[in-house]
């Protein structure tokens, strides 16, 4: 190899001098590379209209590819399912499609669509259900017909209810197999309360309690045009599509609007929560408390704080915990925000068992550091540059623009929300960030969850303070193991124990 070195050098010199004579001087400093202004870009907005029956429609033409995709979001989701039937909406989200329609079984529908390489799928979220399609434009009429049938005339056949229940049982049985999944799930329970509708989870008993009639009833109560936002993107003509939709949905009468009960949040008491797991050599650490809503005036400051404190490669946590201390592969933090309810303030990392307590303390040090050494002007400038210079990626495809608009419509946010967001971030000051950090991230209010192999910890977790053990034993199915009947709440987080 050594003999080659001079040749390599020579090649370099030749390339530099002969091919790109000025590259060396120009390349000396990245700061000297000119950055021309970004050309003005006004992404195409979808056409919005409302049918007389209250259905809101967005049409976004995109003629790049001969495809047409659509999705409808319907108000009402798993946060509204009865506590005795948790999992019902997961089953609904699957069987709505797999259970077929009045005229076709789900299996027939599968064949009908797959031969066209098309999809019609349904799903479920905390606050809504969804039904979507994707097809080649030439198949639009065929696929839209199938979509419409599933939307309006689903049959929820019993064999598919049974199948969905089996799949749920399987998921329940596997939910304690993966340490990061346990940490993610249990930390949400600590932040919101174990029985909170955004945190609670399905059990064998609650899944077994779900009947076909529950799904039919839910559908009848919620799937009305006035509860639906429909968005279509792709290779079509808007005027023709509007005409088609008016014709398809014109006869569909309004129904009762969806009501949402008030949802209580009961965060766990601050302190330490422990889930021992013997078959791992890495601990998952999650610190949580209640976060904010997106319409909170502090949201923009929180976003800048998140970027600077726990966002990307250049955030404080990444630099300190990962780069400088080598304690973690994954580390992150942020003041979480949701559209219509509080998000979760979250600090999370994973570290080898032998640095578990050291890592908790290292995170504390970073929180303390926010008071002693607030996020600086420099850090704020970097965070804002990062958010604002990448802003264009919020709307760099017609589909993204459509989905943003649909989300604002669903939650009642203004259509120009993104523009307001940009302006809001631009205005954020150092004081705003310091205030938001102090207001929403409190070392003494955090519930600190550790999932790990306690035998190998550097120090016992209770060297930090009193520890509540969280029992994640899965309650057996009803009728099995009579010695250990499911106890209400025993599955669900430590704060009650």
């Amino acid at each position: 190899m050594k003999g080659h070195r001079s040749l390599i050098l020579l090649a370099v010199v030749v390339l530099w001098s002969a091919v790109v004579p000025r590259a060396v001087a120009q390349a000396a400093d990245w700061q000297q590379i000119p950055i021309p202004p970004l050309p003005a870009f006004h992404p195409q907005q979808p056409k919005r209209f409302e049918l007389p029956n209250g259905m809101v429609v967005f049409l976004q033409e995109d003629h790049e590819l001969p495809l047409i995709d659509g999705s409808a979001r319907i108000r009402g989701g798993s946060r509204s399912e009865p506590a005795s039937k948790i999992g019902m909406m997961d089953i609904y989200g699957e069987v709505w499609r797999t259970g077929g329609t009045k005229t076709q079984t789900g299996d027939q529908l599968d064949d009908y669509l797959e031969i066209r390489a098309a999809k019609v799928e349904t799903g479920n979220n905390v606050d809504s259900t969804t039904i979507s399609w994707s097809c080649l434009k030439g198949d639009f009429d065929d696929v839209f017909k199938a979509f419409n049938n599933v939307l309006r005339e689903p049959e929820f056949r019993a064999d598919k209810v049974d199948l969905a229940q089996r799949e749920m049982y399987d998921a329940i049985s596997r939910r304690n197999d993966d340490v990061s999944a346990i940490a993610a799930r249990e930390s949400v329970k600590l932040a919101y309360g174990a029985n909170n509708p955004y945190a609670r989870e399905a059990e064998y008993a609650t899944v077994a309690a779900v009947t076909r009639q529950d799904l039919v009833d839910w559908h009848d109560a919620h799937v009305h045009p006035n509860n639906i936002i429909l968005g279509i993107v792709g290779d079509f003509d808007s005027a023709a599509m509007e005409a088609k939709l008016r014709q398809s949905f014109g006869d569909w009468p309004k129904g009762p609007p969806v009501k949402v009960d008030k949802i209580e949040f009961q965060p766990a008491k601050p302190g330490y929560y422990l889930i021992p797991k013997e078959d791992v050599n890495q601990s998952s650490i999650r610190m949580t408390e209640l976060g904010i809503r997106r319409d909170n005036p502090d949201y923009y400051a929180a976003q800048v704080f998140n970027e600077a404190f726990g966002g990307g490669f250049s955030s404080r946590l990444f630099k300190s915990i990962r780069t400088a201390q080598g304690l973690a592969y994954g580390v992150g933090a942020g003041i979480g925000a949701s559209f219509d309810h509080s998000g979760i303030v979250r600090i999370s990392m994973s570290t080898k068992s032998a640095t578990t307590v050291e890592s908790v303390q290292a995170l504390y040090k970073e929180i303390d550091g926010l008071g002693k050494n607030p996020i600086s002007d420099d850090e704020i400038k970097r965070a804002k540059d990062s958010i604002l210079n990448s802003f264009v990626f919020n709307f760099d495809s017609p589909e993204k623009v459509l989905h943003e608009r649909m989300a604002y419509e669903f939650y009642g946010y203004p259509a120009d929300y993104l523009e307001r967001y940009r302006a809001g971030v631009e205005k954020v000051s150092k004081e705003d960030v310091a205030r938001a950090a102090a207001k929403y991230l409190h070392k003494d209010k955090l519930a600190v969850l550790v999932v790990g192999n306690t035998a190998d910890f550097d120090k016992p977790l209770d060297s930090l303070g009193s520890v509540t053990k969280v029992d994640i034993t899965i309650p057996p199915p009803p009728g099995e193991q009579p010695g250990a009947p499911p106890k209400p709440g025993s599955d669900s987080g430590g704060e009650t124990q």
Partner: protein
Amino acid sequence: MIRALKLFATVLVVGSLAAAQDVTSFEKRTTVKKLDNGLTVVICERPEAPVFSFFTHVDAGSVQDPLGQTGLAHMFEHMAFKGTDKIGTTNYAAEKVALEKVEQAYAAYIAERDKPVDRDETKLKDLEKGWRDAVAEAQKYVKPNEFPQIVEINGGEDLNANTSDDETNYFYSFPENRLELWAYLESERFLHPVMREFYKERNVVIEERRMRTDSNPIGRLLEQFTTAAFQAHPYHRPTIGWTSDLNSFSATDAKKFFDTYYIPSNMVVAVVGDVKASDAMPVVEKYFGRIPSHAKPDERTTTEPPQNSERRVVLQEMSQPLYLEGYHRPDFRSADDAVYDSIADLMSNGRTSRLYRALVRDKKIASDSAGFTGLPGNKYPHLFAFYAFPLPGHKPDEMAAAIHVEIEKLKKEDISDEELKMIKTRAKANLLRSLGSNEGLANSLALYQARYDDWRELFHSVDRIDKVSTADIRRVANLTFVPTNRTVGIIETKGGAPAADQKGGAQ
């Protein structure tokens, strides 16, 4: 009437646009240039929004890890975020000297640590301290994470990289006005990489191993399974690396790996987005043309000999069961590559797939089952694998039996014309759907250019699927899916109790 006419007009207009998505139309907006140093640049114009994405595809992965240094390709990938002689340092001249001292101290420490006999523990402690002190000294010159920071403050999106057995990819997206800044940053990273903070980053990688493999039952199974299936070819070694190797290799080793494999002729850079090739190519050439070329390294690897008896790996875990099996098949250049893709699609794609219908829908013994190709890579002969997750109360053996019934059907009966049509239609539609994003296109164009020396193969791959016959599928199934060519990987629940009767899923 007017409406109908309008609809018709739309169809006509759009009909002609639809044709704009074939290889001919891409040829009009795709430019390829092989630079004098051997590096290939692909630029595809897609002016949908003022942004662009790129992929730097390096034709070296963990297969190239030297003996005793598994994980090195991936380790270098992490180091490519650490900056250059100009980025990430307060004083490179001094830092360079300090980093050389780190390497000397580390070599001395390792030499003593790994002595098979007569290790002097006192001396070892001193040497370890010497190494750690040298690391601390070098750290004084570091501007941590300056390289990714420059990307982020300039609006970089989805900044990341990945290493596989076959290759290493670096990628992110930028606003279009940062093209020259990108060309500078991305070329400098491979012109003047600096192995700073190496030993801390090594700890980060060991944490990554704990997360992906050590603390994850499926990760543990996959590692053991692949190791069992390949006995001669480097595919038997995990990309993340064995722990002892991770605790052993040095920054000097990583730099040597870089010098050997990160040569321009091993690199394809694909740029897709709001760029004009006529403007962008000279910029890309100006910066990437500086990377010095030298001869390609020796690329010989051991050929995996034919497997002539079944191998089994059974893990007893505190988790729910899983069944996995794999069969050796030839590499991606095989004339039958499209046949394997067709079999994977038939067996696995969606609710019409044979495995879903048999194991999930009809027998009701699994929550999920599929077959896939490309384990652990596909540049070399590799595995076609099948798996199933048993439903509570069902055992891995039942999965094996049910999967084998489906395999036997493939071998004995022709698949239906409907099924064949489904496979072919889906291949075309999937290609179409993959063309609508800068990132996806940059990834595909770089990969196909690197693999076939021609990005058009992305489109031709669909033509090859279109030529697959029912006889091909039977022939390849009979050739491949035979018991002696099989490796089996199983997770059994410790204590043997199936899920539904077991009290604690996770003590």
